[in-house]
């Protein structure tokens, strides 16, 4: 008569295996997009999972294409390179300012100051 099956536990772990990112946070981010009004719950699941796959995809691709491969490292430049070179990741170039060496920056600053001084 008694149901000894740990229903709750197996369901929770099934759901855990399926999606690891916080769905509520994804929803908040989606809603902060301009013009987005309402999102169906299933559409939310899909987007969350897609974001997970994206992270894995980005990390793997960057690692494989990057210069850190021999040293078994992944750094900023690997990611920036992948965004530049891979079509699907090209949308990331907006948020990936190319890092320049400090001395180059200082040099360009000096140049700007010189130009101002010409007045």
């Amino acid at each position: 008569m008694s149901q000894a099956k740990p229903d709750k536990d197996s369901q929770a772990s099934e759901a855990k295996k399926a999606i690891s990112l916080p769905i509520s946070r994804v929803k908040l981010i989606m809603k902060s997009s301009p013009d987005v009004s309402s999102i169906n719950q299933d559409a939310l699941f899909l987007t969350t999972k897609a974001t997970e796959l994206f992270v894995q995809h980005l990390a793997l691709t960057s690692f494989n294409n990057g210069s850190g491969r021999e040293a078994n490292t992944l750094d900023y430049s690997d990611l920036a390179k992948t965004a530049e070179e891979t079509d699907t990741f090209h949308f990331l170039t907006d948020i990936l300012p190319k890092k320049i060496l400090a001395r180059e920056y200082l040099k360009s600053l000096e140049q700007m100051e010189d130009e101002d001084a010409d007045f």
Partner: protein
Amino acid sequence: MASSSGNDDDLTIPRAAINKMIKETLPNVRVANDARELVVNCCTEFIHLISSEANEICNKSDKKTISPEHVINALESLGFASYITEVKDVLQECKSVALKRRKASSRLENLGIPEEELLRQQQELFAKVGFPEGQRCMTGCGGSEYTMADGDEESSIYV
């Protein structure tokens, strides 16, 4: 950590979740801190990208709510078609989990006797054995134990 201005643009996926995923995808790889930070921001960017595209598709279809179909079409048109199969599978799994949960809870309700019924049965029994109505004692485990002194015998009734 969180800015007090409450700016929408500061919303990101928690760093810990991203770190965990990176670790699972690239075990034993040393990942620079600024690279991790970047991945966090890329996530937000990706979500905006998908949302905007899905939203556009949704608007064109004269529907008000973004549906799974819209998201799938967005993935396709943005070059992420390779995600579609796995994403669909997960949706199926989430749905079946939710369905099982609903079935399980309705099953329990039918098997267990609701409390009002239990109380009613209790009253009936009291009436039969001559307890004054309104007197009852319930033990903590949900059952009730009554002892009746009836001449020589002591009998217990469990309800």
